[in-house]
């Protein structure tokens, strides 16, 4: 008679199951997080000479051969760790050395005119382009803000770092070289942050970091550049 009641399932272990699943997902999610060095390749061009000609003084040339010897401009026998110091010297060119890349102060007027231009473009823009132009406008406004903060440290430099490693170079050396170039820019930016904002790179806001990236804009070319 009477219906049989099913034995109760102990729900106490549900927590364990959920917990284990959670651990599983955390572990797998961690795996996909990978550190890397980002690069945007230049577009393919049928002509062998790709880039616009660059003035000789503006090109900072770094060669590397299969023995991992480095030629920096005309200096040989360098160690990898010496590159940031040399690069920073070249990019800043504080003494206005005629053999080093030229730079000039950025004026408020020119930044304002870019902002105005972008504003005018935004008004006339078609639906599809609004987003990208709005982004550019925001960028140009941020540049003006950067000028307010960093003043005469905000210079427009015409430098191009030209990296031409030999085909036989070991990949680890190549990555190391890339790393050293990135380090030079990072150091320049954090030195300026310390000077003007009194804070280290780690303590900056995202906006401040973006502005510093505008002040010292990275300009590295891996295709052979033409002399002007």
């Amino acid at each position, binding site marked *: 008679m009477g219906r049989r009641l099913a034995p109760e399932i102990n729900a106490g272990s549900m927590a364990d199951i959920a917990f284990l699943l959670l651990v599983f997902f955390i572990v797998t*999610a961690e795996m996909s997080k990978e550190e890397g060095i980002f690069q945007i*390749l230049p*577009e393919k061009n049928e002509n062998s000479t790709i880039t616009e000609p660059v003035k000789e003084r503006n090109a900072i040339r770094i060669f590397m051969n299969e023995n991992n010897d480095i030629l920096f401009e005309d200096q040989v026998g360098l160690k990898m760790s010496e590159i940031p110091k040399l690069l920073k010297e070249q990019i800043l060119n504080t003494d206005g050395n005629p053999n080093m890349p030229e730079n000039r102060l950025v004026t408020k007027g020119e930044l304002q005119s870019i902002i105005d231009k972008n504003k005018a473009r935004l008004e006339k823009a078609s639906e599809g382009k609004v987003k990208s132009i709005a982004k550019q406008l925001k960028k140009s406004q941020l540049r003006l803000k950067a000028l307010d903060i960093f003043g005469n440290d905000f210079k427009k430099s015409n430098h191009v770092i030209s990296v031409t490693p030999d085909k036989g170079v070991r990949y680890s050396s190549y990555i190391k070289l890339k*790393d050293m170039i990135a*380090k030079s820019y990072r150091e320049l930016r954090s030195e300026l942050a310390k000077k003007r904002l009194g804070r280290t790179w780690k303590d900056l806001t995202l906006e401040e970091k973006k502005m510093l990236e505008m002040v010292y804009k990275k300009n590295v070319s891996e295709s052979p550049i033409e002399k002007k």
Partner: protein
Amino acid sequence: MSKFNKKKKKSDGPGITTASLPDIVFMLLFFFMVTTKTRTNDLSISISLPSATETGILDDKTPTAYINIGVPVKALQELYGDNPRIQLNDAILNASDVVGFIENKRASIEKSFEMAQPGVGKAKASKMIVCLKVDQNAQLGTLDEVREELKTAKALKINYVVNKAN
């Protein structure tokens, strides 16, 4: 009432012990952990990544394609030689296969995003980043070939996967 209660108690079968349930799930967990680990390491080539300090973390929402370059493992050296080779998906292929691989990858990304939300597939596929996992002892020549092919395939956003050094 008391009679009814007694009846109920009697019909109770022997209780199922749930004490072993965590063990079962534990085993499942271990199974998944082990299989996922072997899958990512399931390479026919050996790769030891170089290390760098100035790195960024890839946003995991961005679609990616992986290209591996390294020396074939011992068991496969008879077949593929001991020079660095390119592995795409599960196969060791040549640089000339990169374009096809990228196109397939793009199509599959487009398809999967299109299913979730129509109209975004193309835009997502164009955001694809190609992650290069290259052995630190490989020579740049092989990488150059791959990069040339990537330019042909118009996959210009690349990411060199490295170990973070302090």
